[in-house]
């Protein structure tokens, strides 16, 4: 299947980041010192950041991902090269406030919901449907927690946005995996021949 435009754009950005990495590392330390694990980390990081930067801050997970990446000082140079310095500063300031607001909103919603649910449970206890329903709810809650830990920035989202973000995240991950696999296959093939 021919690659989509997203995949092409991703590849461009990713390779740009990798070049920036290799050039910077060549200037500072010798390249031979990068172990395979360091290389892998660098590759993965640049791939993730490339994918997230394609979103241009429209989705929450992409902002969270870039923000998490920028927390580590080692990644500063990579991020600067890939995103441009203004993006880095903008992203570091913006999402923190929104995530705080979101968490506050989420917390207040939870309080409200708990009080309403308590009231409602009292009404429904006569039906004896509570027990099965509440267990199902607990299961769903657990799963939702796990999903929050998987999606970058998921802790701050409410349920609805979480699902939306998950959708988008899955699509992006698929594209990323597709590109990386093709490049890996091509590289391995060329290294063999």
């Amino acid at each position, binding site marked *: *299947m021919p690659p989509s435009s997203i995949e*092409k754009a991703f590849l461009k950005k990713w390779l740009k980041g990798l070049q920036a990495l290799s050039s910077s590392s060549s200037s500072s330390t010798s390249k031979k010192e990068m172990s*395979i694990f360091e290389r892998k980390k660098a590759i993965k990081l640049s791939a993730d950041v490339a994918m997230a930067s394609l979103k241009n801050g429209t989705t929450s997970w992409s902002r969270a991902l870039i923000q998490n990446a920028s927390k580590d000082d080692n990644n500063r140079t990579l991020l600067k090269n890939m995103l441009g310095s203004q993006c880095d500063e903008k992203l570091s300031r913006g999402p923190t406030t929104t995530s705080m607001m979101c968490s506050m909103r989420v917390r207040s919603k939870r309080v409200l919901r708990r009080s309403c649910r308590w009231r409602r449970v009292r009404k429904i206890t006569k039906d004896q449907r509570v027990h099965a329903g509440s267990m199902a709810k607990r299961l769903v809650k657990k799963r939702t927690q796990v999903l929050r830990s998987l999606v970058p920035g998921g802790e701050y989202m409410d349920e609805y946005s979480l699902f939306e973000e998950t959708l988008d995240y899955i699509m992006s991950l698929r594209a990323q995996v597709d590109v990386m696999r093709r490049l890996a296959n091509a590289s391995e093939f*060329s290294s*063999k021949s």
Partner: protein
Amino acid sequence: MERIGDVESSLQFGEEIERLMTIPHESGTASSFTALLKLPANQAMELLHDSSEKPYDYSLNCTSSSSHLHFPSNLDLLERASRLSVFSTAAAQDSPETTNSSQNSLKVKNEPTETDSNPKSSPEISDPMSQTQTKCQRSGKRKGREKKVKNSSKKSKSAENEKPEETEKLPYVHVRARRGQATDSHSLAERARREKINARMKLLQELVPGCNKISGTALVLDEIINHVQTLQHQVEMLSMRLAAVNPRINFNLDNLFPAESGSLVEGNFPSMVMPLTWAQVQPIGNRQQQQQLWHFDTLHQPVWGDNPNFITPENSLLSYDSSANSVSMHSNRLKMEL
């Protein structure tokens, strides 16, 4: 006393809808009304016949277009109008409750919220006209991604003991509460929210392979989590492979096409389509699916031109040759792991 006035208002609405149905145009407000008409048939039928299990296919109606809900043709309208009238008569014949409830007050609310609430979420409103209006307004704002709508078994109760809500003004909808559920605004909002979430879950179900047959939120979530974890692991594995393949982290795409008389020229796109190499790649590179290499030519111009420290193809070719042995060991090991 109240009822008479309400019946009049509902009649007014009926007239309005019929008027709008005969006007084929696509103004902003009217589009939502016309969008209304796309849904009603399926929704009304579904709810009246209390068929919760059957997934109703909307493809024939509203979901063909993406976000515009355009007006197909007069013929479609007439068809739908006939269907609607069929339902109103059927409703009158089939169940006495529907006729009773049609006398009750049912008014339509213009939902101010822009967030999409699922049409399937709205409870059974026996009067098909107002029902269509509410549902279609919501669908009009919905992005056209939904294909199937399934009523969860909880919501598929037929209209038996329903309590209408109290509203005075015209734009409010009389939502029928289901048996044993509260009708205050909090729980309504809760319900609307939950149904939004269920809509998203449906989308996720369609996205994740193998999720369609699973029913139940927890299991679907399980699958979704599994899928996300799988994808993330794949990313890790692939980055490991790439790190192993390449001693330096620059991917010189020229070397991927050794048969080419490679040049990193910016201005032109040399026809980098190498059918030779691609044919060779095919049997090796494909594990599960057919993977074809791309035209990397599009990448050359912006990417290579920028970097002053770019390593010339000869050097990287040499590096490949020298480190080929160690690299092949790495890659073999990785392949076994995979």
